[in-house]
C-alpha cells in the first residue's frame, strides 16, 4: 500500500500524466476574472410621486414599501431615501441567501402587494437589481466634429452599438449612459396659448387624436384577409405640424405648426452628459456573463468594436475608455512573474540545502501540485481570479513543505543504507500521519474563511477554498507520487558531498552551541522565545486596522457635488474647472467625466446610485502608474477644492471589499429630523477637525429651497380650479403633457407639449397663466403667492427608523479606523451626546469589517475543537496537543510582529496570512515532536538526545523556512496595497517561527518528558515517557 506507486512505475507515470493533462486542460478552459464575483444582494426600488415633498414621499411611499419588505425573512436590511417626488428603497438580502434570484422574486411579489397601497399618482415601483456588478468594458462614442455636438446622433449611434454588443456571445448586460431620452417637443408661447385659451392638455389630446396608430380591423375577403389601418399616424415633424388644433371662422384651421415650435431632440434640459477627454460623448458599458474568460470575451468585443468603428460616421470616434481584461491580464502577468521568480529562488535554495536531486524533485512537486489543484478547482467551479490565485500562492508556501519533508526522509533512509523500496515504505509509514495531521490542522485553520457567508465570504472565500484544495493535493501527492519518485531518483548521500557545505559549518556550529545552551536551561529559553510572540501581540495593538486594502489599479474617481438645486450647466461649469486641473497633471492618462449620474461601475464595489442628480458629476481617472497614486490623489484633492470652491470635491482611491458608501459612516437614528440634523452637524464638526478627513457630508443636510404656491383655495374654486387642478396645471406647464408618439426606425419617440418659458425663472412662473378646465386663463398670481420654503431634501431611513448618515471621506492612505478612534475619543470627551431616543452605529468600512470578522469568528469554536481533536489523536497525548496548539498561537504573534516591524495595517490579507503561517508552524512543530518521540532517549528527557533529534530535523525545517521566505520575497517587494502586507505577514512569520521551532518546542518537549518521567518513576510504571508505545 505504502509503496504501491513505487512498485508499479507505469501507474506512477500514468498518475503524473493524468495530473498534468487534467491540470493543463483546466488551466486552458477555466473561467477567468480579475476579482471574484460578489453575488448581488442589493436591489433598489424606485417609485416616483411627482411633486410630493420628501415628508409625503416618506410617509406615503417609502414606509409602505419598507413595511411590506421587512416582513420577508430573506431580507436583511431595508433602507430608504425619500426625496422630493422620488422614493428609493434599498433592500439587502440576508448574507446566507445564495439563491438571490429566488429571494428577489419574493421581493418582487411583496412589491406588487405594496403597489396597491401606494397613493394615486405614484408610479409603479421600479425594481432594479442588475446594478450590483461592474462593467467589464466601457466604450465611448466621442463627438470629434467642429460643430456643436448633436446628442441625438450620439444617442442613436450608441443604441446601435448597444444592440450589437448585446449580440456578442457571453455578454450579460449592456447599458448606454450619458444621454437623456429622446422626445419631440411642441413648445407654445405661453401668452399666445393663453390668449387662444389652449391648454397643454388640450393640445396633447389633439395630437393624440391625430395619431392613428391602432388597427382599423380586417377585411375578410374570399381568399384573402387584409388588415386595414388608417393613414395619418404621426410619422415625422411635418405631419405633426399639420395637426389641426381648432377650426376658425371661414373654414380657417389653426394648425399646430402655426402656433408651436416643433423640434426633435433630447429631453430638455438634458439630464446628463459625458465628457471623454473633454469632448462630448456617449458611453456604452457591457458586462461579461459568469463563468467565462475575460480575455477571450474581451477580444470578441474588441473585434465587434473595430467593425463598428469602420462603419462610424466621420466626425464620430469610438474610444475604448475602460477594459477590465487589461487590468486582469496585467494583474495575472505581474503575479505570474513574481511567482516564477519566487519559485526560482526556492529551487536555488533547495539546491544548496537538499542537493541536486531532491531539489529537482521538490521543484517538480510544485507544478504537479498546482496542476492537480487547478483541475480540482475547475471541477468544483472556482474560477481563476485574484483571490483563488492568492490561495494557490499561500498553499505554495505550505505545499513544498510536504514534498521537502518526504524527500528528506527518503534521502536519510537511503543514506542509512536502506533499499529504495524500504526507504519509501519507511518514510511514508513514518510521515503520513504527521503530514496528514499538519495538513488537516491547516485545512481546519482555513475553514472559517471557507464557511464565511455573504459578500465578504464570496470575496475572500475562494482563497481558503483553493488553499484547502492545494493542501490536500499536496499531501496526497507527497505520500504517493513524490514518495515513489524519491525512491527512483534519490541516491544515498555521500559523506564527501558534505565537504562542499563547509561554508556553512561555522553557522552550524554556532546554531548547535545556541541549541545546547538553551536545552541546558529550558525554562529561560522558553521565556525568551515567548518574548517575540508577546511583542507581536502587544505591537499588533498599535497597528491600525484596514480590513480591506486599496485596489491595485492605477485608477481613481473624483466626485463633484454642487448645491442640490444646481442645474446641469452649472455642474458642467464646475466640471470644466476641475477638468482643467486634471489636465495639468502629466501623470494622468485619461479622465472621463459623467455629469448628472455616477460613472458606470468600473470596479466591482462602486455604486451607481446618483441617477438624475444634476448637481453631481463623477470622473473616472486613469493614471500612468500605480506608484505615487496616493500622493497624486491627495494633491488633487487640495487643488480641486481650491479650483472649484462652489462644490464638494471628493477624490477617492478604489478600495477592495464589499461596497460601502464611505470609509467612515455614522448612522444616527431617532425620530426628529431637526434633531437628527443637529446631531449630524455636531458629528461633522468633529470630523472636520481630523487632519485625515477630506470632506464630510450628511444624508440629512439642510433642505433644498422649494417654491410653494400658497394658493387661496376659495379664490381657486371660484376660478373653477380646485387645488388639485391648480397643481396639475402647473405641472403641465413645467413638465409638459404627453400626446402621441412618432415612430422613427426602431425608436418610438414621445411627443411632449409644453409652454415656452414658464420653466425659466420664478418670475416667469409667477406670471404664468394657468388654463382652467373650463378653458379660461387664470393668472397664477391671482390665485396666491409664491414663497420659498425649505423642504427636507431627502429623508433617509434604515431598518424602519429615520437616520442621518454622516459620511466622512479620508485622504488617500489614511485609514478609516483612525477616524473612528478619533471620533470615539471625542465622544468620550462628551462632545457628541445623544438625547434619549437617539442612537448611533458605525457603518461603512467598520461595519463591513465587523460583519466579516463576526462571521469569521462564528465558526471558530467548532474549528478549534476539531484542531485539538486532530492533534491529540495524532500524538495520543493531550500535553503534546496543547504544545502544538501553543505553537499555533505563538506563530500568530510572530506574524503580527513581522507586520508591526514592517509597519503594515491589519486587514483581511494578514488574517489569511496568519492562518497559513499557523499551518507552517504547526507543520514544523509536528515534525520536531514526531522525530523526538521516535527517539527513546529524547522521550525520557535527555537533553543530548533532544539536541540530536532537533539537529536531525533542522535541515528540512530550515529548508522549508527559507523556501517559504524566498517564495514570498518578490511579493513582499511588489507594489500595491494587497500583496506586501500579506507576504510580509506570512514570510516574516515563518522566519521568526524558527525561533519557536528551535528554542521553544524542543525545550518544552524536554520539560514535558522530564515531568512524565518523574511521574512515571514515582508511580514506578514501566518507562517509556512520551515515546511511541
Amino acid at each position, binding site marked *: 500500500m505504502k509503496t504501491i506507486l513505487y512498485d508499479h512505475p507505469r501507474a506512477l507515470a500514468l498518475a503524473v500524466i493524468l495530473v498534468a493533462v487534467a491540470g493543463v486542460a483546466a488551466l486552458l478552459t477555466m473561467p477567468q476574472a480579475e476579482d471574484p464575483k460578489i453575488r448581488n444582494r442589493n436591489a433598489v426600488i424606485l417609485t416616483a410621486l411627482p411633486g410630493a415633498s420628501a415628508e409625503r414621499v416618506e410617509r406615503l411611499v417609502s414606509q409602505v414599501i419598507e413595511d411590506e419588505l421587512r416582513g420577508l425573512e430573506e431580507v436583511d436590511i431595508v433602507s430608504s431615501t425619500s426625496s422630493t417626488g422620488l422614493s428609493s428603497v434599498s433592500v439587502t438580502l440576508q448574507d446566507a441567501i445564495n439563491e438571490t434570484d429566488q429571494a428577489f422574486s419574493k421581493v418582487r411579489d411583496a412589491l406588487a402587494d405594496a403597489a396597491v397601497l401606494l397613493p394615486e399618482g405614484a408610479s409603479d415601483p421600479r425594481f432594479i437589481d442588475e446594478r450590483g456588478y461592474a462593467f467589464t468594458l466601457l466604450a465611448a462614442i466621442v463627438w470629434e466634429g467642429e460643430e456643436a455636438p448633436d446628442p441625438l446622433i450620439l444617442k442613436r449611434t450608441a443604441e446601435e452599438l448597444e444592440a450589437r454588443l448585446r449580440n456578442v456571445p457571453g455578454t450579460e448586460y449592456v447599458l448606454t449612459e450619458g444621454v437623456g431620452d429622446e422626445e419631440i417637443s411642441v413648445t407654445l408661447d405661453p401668452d399666445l396659448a393663453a390668449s387662444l385659451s389652449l391648454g397643454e392638455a388640450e393640445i396633447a389630446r389633439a395630437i393624440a387624436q391625430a395619431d392613428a396608430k391602432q388597427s382599423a380591423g380586417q377585411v375578410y375577403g374570399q381568399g384573402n384577409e387584409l388588415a386595414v389601418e388608417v393613414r395619418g399616424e404621426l410619422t415625422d415633424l411635418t405631419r405633426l405640424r399639420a395637426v389641426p388644433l381648432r377650426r376658425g371662422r371661414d373654414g380657417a384651421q389653426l394648425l399646430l405648426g402655426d402656433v408651436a415650435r416643433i423640434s426633435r431632440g433630447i429631453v430638455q434640459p438634458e439630464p446628463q452628459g459625458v465628457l471623454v477627454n473633454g469632448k462630448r460623448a456617449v458611453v456604452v458599458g457591457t458586462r461579461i456573463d459568469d463563468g467565462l474568460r475575460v480575455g477571450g470575451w474581451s477580444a470578441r468585443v474588441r473585434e465587434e468594436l473595430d467593425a463598428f468603428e469602420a462603419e462610424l460616421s466621420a466626425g464620430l470616434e469610438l474610444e475604448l475608455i475602460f477594459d477590465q481584461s487589461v487590468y486582469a491580464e496585467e494583474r495575472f502577468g505581474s503575479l505570474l512573474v513574481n511567482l516564477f521568480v519566487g519559485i526560482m529562488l526556492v529551487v536555488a535554495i533547495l539546491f544548496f540545502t537538499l542537493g541536486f536531486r531532491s531539489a529537482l524533485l521538490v521543484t517538480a512537486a510544485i507544478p504537479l501540485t498546482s496542476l492537480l489543484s487547478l483541475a480540482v478547482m475547475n471541477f468544483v467551479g472556482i474560477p481563476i481570479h485574484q483571490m483563488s490565485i492568492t490561495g494557490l500562492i499561500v498553499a505554495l508556501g505550505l505545499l513544498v513543505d510536504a514534498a521537502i519533508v518526504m524527500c528528506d526522509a527518503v534521502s536519510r533512509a537511503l543514506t542509512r543504507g536502506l533499499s529504495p523500496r524500504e526507504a519509501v515504505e519507511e518514510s511514508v509509514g513514518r510521515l503520513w500521519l504527521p503530514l496528514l495531521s499538519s495538513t488537516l490542522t491547516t485545512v481546519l485553520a482555513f475553514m472559517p474563511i471557507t464557511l464565511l457567508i455573504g459578500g465578504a465570504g464570496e470575496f475572500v472565500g475562494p482563497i481558503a477554498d483553493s488553499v484547502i484544495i492545494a493542501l490536500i493535493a499536496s499531501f496526497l501527492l507527497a505520500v504517493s507520487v513524490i514518495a515513489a519518485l524519491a525512491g527512483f531518483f534519490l541516491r544515498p548521500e555521500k559523506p564527501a558531498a558534505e565537504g562542499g557545505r563547509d561554508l556553512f559549518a561555522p553557522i552550524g*556550529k554556532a546554531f548547535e*552551541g545556541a541549541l545546547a545552551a538553551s536545552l541546558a536551561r529550558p525554562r529561560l529559553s522558553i521565556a525568551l522565545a515567548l*518574548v517575540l510572540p508577546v511583542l507581536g501581540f502587544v505591537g499588533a495593538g498599535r497597528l491600525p486596522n484596514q480590513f480591506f486594502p486599496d485596489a491595485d489599479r492605477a485608477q481613481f474617481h473624483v466626485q463633484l457635488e454642487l*448645491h442640490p438645486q444646481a442645474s446641469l450647466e452649472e455642474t458642467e461649469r464646475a466640471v470644466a474647472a476641475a477638468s482643467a486641473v486634471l489636465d495639468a497633471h502629466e501623470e494622468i492618462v485619461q479622465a472621463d467625466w459623467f455629469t448628472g449620474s455616477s460613472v458606470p461601475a468600473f470596479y466591482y464595489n462602486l455604486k451607481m446610485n446618483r441617477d438624475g442628480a444634476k448637481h453631481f458629476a463623477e470622473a473616472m481617472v486613469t493614471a500612468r502608474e500605480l506608484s505615487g497614486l496616493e500622493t497624486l490623489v491627495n494633491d488633487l484633492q487640495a487643488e480641486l477644492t481650491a479650483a472649484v470652491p462652489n462644490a464638494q470635491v471628493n477624490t477617492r482611491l478604489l478600495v477592495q471589499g464589499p461596497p460601502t458608501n464611505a470609509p467612515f459612516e455614522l448612522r444616527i437614528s431617532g425620530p426628529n429630523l431637526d434633531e437628527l440634523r443637529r446631531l449630524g452637524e455636531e458629528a461633522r464638526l468633529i470630523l472636520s*477637525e481630523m487632519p485625515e478627513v477630506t470632506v464630510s*457630508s450628511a444624508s440629512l443636510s*439642510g433642505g433644498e429651497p422649494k417654491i410653494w404656491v400658497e394658493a387661496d383655495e376659495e379664490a381657486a374654486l371660484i376660478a373653477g380650479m380646485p387645488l388639485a387642478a391648480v397643481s396639475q396645471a402647473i405641472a403641465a406647464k413645467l413638465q409638459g403633457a404627453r400626446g402621441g408618439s412618432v415612430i422613427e426606425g426602431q425608436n418610438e419617440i414621445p411627443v411632449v407639449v409644453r409652454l415656452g418659458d414658464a420653466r425659466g425663472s420664478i418670475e416667469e412662473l*409667477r406670471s404664468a397663466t394657468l388654463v382652467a378646465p373650463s378653458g379660461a386663463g387664470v393668472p397664477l398670481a*391671482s390665485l396666491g403667492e409664491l*414663497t420659498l420654503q425649505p423642504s427636507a431634501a431627502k429623508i433617509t431611513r434604515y431598518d424602519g427608523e429615520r437616520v442621518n448618515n454622516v459620511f466622512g471621506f479620508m485622504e488617500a492612505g489614511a485609514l478609516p479606523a483612525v477616524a473612528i478612534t478619533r471620533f470615539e475619543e471625542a465622544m468620550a470627551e462628551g462632545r457628541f451626546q445623544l438625547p434619549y431616543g437617539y442612537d448611533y452605529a458605525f457603518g461603512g468600512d467598520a461595519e463591513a469589517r465587523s460583519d466579516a470578522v463576526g462571521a469569521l469568528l462564528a465558526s471558530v469554536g467548532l474549528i478549534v475543537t476539531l484542531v485539538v481533536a486532530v492533534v491529540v489523536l495524532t500524538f495520543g497525548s493531550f500535553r503534546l496537543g496543547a504544545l502544538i496548539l501553543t505553537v499555533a498561537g505563538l506563530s500568530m504573534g510572530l506574524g503580527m510582529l513581522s507586520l508591526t516591524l514592517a509597519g503594515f495595517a491589519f486587514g483581511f490579507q494578514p488574517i489569511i496570512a496568519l492562518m497559513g503561517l499557523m499551518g507552517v508552524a504547526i507543520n514544523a512543530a509536528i515534525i520536531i515532536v514526531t522525530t523526538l518521540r521516535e527517539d527513546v532517549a529524547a522521550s525520557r528527557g535527555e537533553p543530548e538526545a533532544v539536541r540530536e533529534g532537533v539537529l536531525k530535523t533542522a535541515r528540512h525545517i530550515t529548508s522549508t523556512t527559507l523556501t517559504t521566505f524566498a517564495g514570498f520575497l518578490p511579493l513582499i517587494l511588489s507594489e500595491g496595497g494587497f500583496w506586501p502586507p500579506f507576504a510580509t505577514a506570512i514570510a516574516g512569520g515563518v522566519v521568526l517561527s524558527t525561533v519557536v521551532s528551535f528554542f521553544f518546542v524542543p525545550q518544552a518537549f524536554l520539560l514535558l518528558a522530564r515531568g512524565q518521567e518523574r511521574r512515571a518513576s514515582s508511580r514506578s510504571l514501566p518507562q517509556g515517557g512520551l515515546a511511541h508505545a
Partner: protein
Amino acid sequence: MTERNDVRGARGRRPAAIWWFGAAGLLAVIGAFALFRPIDGAPREGEGRALEAEVFAARMQDSFEERRLFTGTLSASEVSDVGFQVPGEIEAVLVQIGDRVEKGDVLARLDPEKIDLRREEASAQLAEAEAALRRARSTAERVLDLRRQGFATDQERDDAVAARDSAAERVRLLQRASARARADAEDASLTAPFAGFVVRRYADQGATVAAGAPVLRLSENAAQEAEVAVPDTLSGRLLPGAELPLIHRGGEVMAKVTGIAQDIDPSTRSRMVRMELPQGSSLTPGALVRLELTDEQEGRGAWVPLSALQEGYRGLWSVYVVEDGAAVRKDVTILSLSDDRAYVSGTLEDGDQVIKAATFRFVPGQKVTPVPSSGPISLANAGGASR
C-alpha cells in the same frame, strides 16, 4: 536569526552566557523597534483641513424692489366698422387688409348707375312738380283776382290757394329728394373717417349691401391701449395717470394707466387695468404685452443667491458666513424672491463674507478659507437686472 544548521559532529561548546546575552540583546532591539516604530496610516498630528469656499460680501440696503409681470393684450383705441349709408351693389373695394389709409381716402364705391338713375328720376320729378307749382300759382292768382272782382266764391279761392301751397310743398320735398339723390351719388364712394389700417373686409365686389351694413373694419393707428388683468390684491397700488413699463417682444414701452375696472372678474380674480400707449408705437393691436410692476418695499436686508441659502431650524433659512476663518451660521428670513436670488433679512450684517454655494459642505464651526467670488453676481440693488 542566523541559524544555519546541517552541522553534524561538531560539538564546540561556547560559554552559554554569550548566547543568553546575545539573545536578550536581539530581543530588546526587535522589541524596541516593534513598539516604537512609526506606523503608516496611524493617526497623525495636525489640524483639520480648511475647505475653500467662494464668498461674497453682503451689501445691506434699506429697501428692495420687487418685480412682477402681468399679461395683457393690446387693442387699438378706435376700431370701427364702416359701411355705405346707402344700399346698393358694390362696384369696387379699393383697399386690402393691412392697407394704411388716411382720413378721406376712398375705400369702396357702389355701382353708380342706379344712383344716377335715382338722381335723374328725382330731378325729373322735381321738374314736373315745379311745372305743377307754376300752374297752381297762376291758377291761384287768377282765382284771387276773380274773387277780388267778385267773380269767384270763397270756396274756389281757398281751393286754389291750397292747391298752390301743396304744389310748393311738393317741390320742396322733391328738391330735398333730389339733393339726397345727389348726396347719394357722393355716398357711393366710402371714405375713411380717420387715419388707420384696414383690418378686415366684410364684403367684396358685386355684393349688395344694405344701408349701414359694415364693409370694412378700420383700426386707428394712433394711440393704442392695453388691457392687463392684475390680481385685485395688487391693482390697488395702481393709480390712474401712473406711467408703467409694458414689456413686449421687441422691448419695453412706458404706458399710462387710464382706468381700472371697479369690479373683479370672478373667473380670474383680477381687475382689468386700461393703459394708454404713447402715439406712434409700432405695436400691432392684439399683441401680447406684459406689465412690469416694480414695487419698492421697505425692509432692511441683502440680496443673496438661492444657492447660498441653507435650511435652518424649524423652517428658518440660514446662510453661512466666514468669520475668523470658520463658518458661522446666520439665520435669515426671506423677504422677496427674484429669479435666482432672494432678499433676506435677519442676523446678516453689512460686509459679511457670505458663502456663495455648496453650503452643505460646511457645518458651523468648521474651518474655511474664503475665496472671493469670481463669478458675475449682481447682488446689489438691481431690480430688473436679470430681465
